[in-house]
């Protein structure tokens, strides 16, 4: 895959336990490219993940913590990771037993390459 966006998705999906990887327009909250397992509502993950990031970024800003870089939401049946990448957001949906540390590193690397 030559496209840098598709290459970014491919590297995120290579991490064990990642069920969906989406690049989202940060302002609009709409997916630019996405790959998701069946059963994952990628549009909803993109829109709601971007919204959550936007609100958390505002909260971080108000708290004087500076600009938000990554956000990780742990839930009973999985994880949601959102990372800023310039005008894009990286949204990853992962299983409860996913390699989260690897995913965070990979998301940071992808963010750096896209920003």
């Amino acid at each position, binding site marked *: 895959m030559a496209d840098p966006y598709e290459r970014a998705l491919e590297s995120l999906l290579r991490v064990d336990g990642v069920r969906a990887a989406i690049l989202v327009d940060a302002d*609009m909250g709409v997916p630019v490219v996405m790959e998701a397992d069946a059963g994952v509502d990628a*549009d909803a993950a993109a*829109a709601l993940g*971007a919204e959550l990031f936007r609100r958390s970024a505002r909260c971080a800003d108000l708290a004087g913590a500076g600009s938000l870089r990554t956000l990780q939401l742990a839930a009973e049946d999985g994880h949601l990771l959102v990372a800023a990448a310039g005008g894009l957001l990286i949204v990853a949906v992962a299983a409860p037993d996913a390699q989260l540390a690897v995913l965070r590193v990979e998301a940071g690397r992808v963010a750096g390459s896209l920003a």
Partner: protein
Amino acid sequence: MRTRAELAVLVDLLRGPLREYVRETRVRMAVLVDASGQLLAQQGFSRGYEVTNVASLAAAAHAAASALADMTGARRWTHLHNEGSNQHMLLAPYATGGSDLILVAIFDRSTSLGIVRLFSDRLGERLRQIPELRGGGSVRDASRFEHELEGGVRRVMGDQA
């Protein structure tokens, strides 16, 4: 054409889902109109908008988008998004089995297109479950549609059309 009683029932049924839609998306204003431009429900801050004009123009936009979708082989259109400098507008048509309904949502930066679109789809699913919408009031008849649309345009143009 719906009777006054049918219309009252319909207006009542649409109020709850639209209120919930506005609460979840934080759009400034949302209206539901039928394909002839008749306003069926409105929620949010409508001050500053001529809501009946918005309804008529939404019906006209729906007719134009449907014709364009037909001509280009895209079949049915699902969303129409207009981005302004301060505000955005999303139009979404819902096929309910009877008359098409059209959602008009006006929003600003306090929400995002992704959220507005996501919940618009969910609103459509909810509306399709309302049995009263599957019945009468169909405007699929071309001559009646044209007549009703013409009436809507006249209202917008102040009877000059």
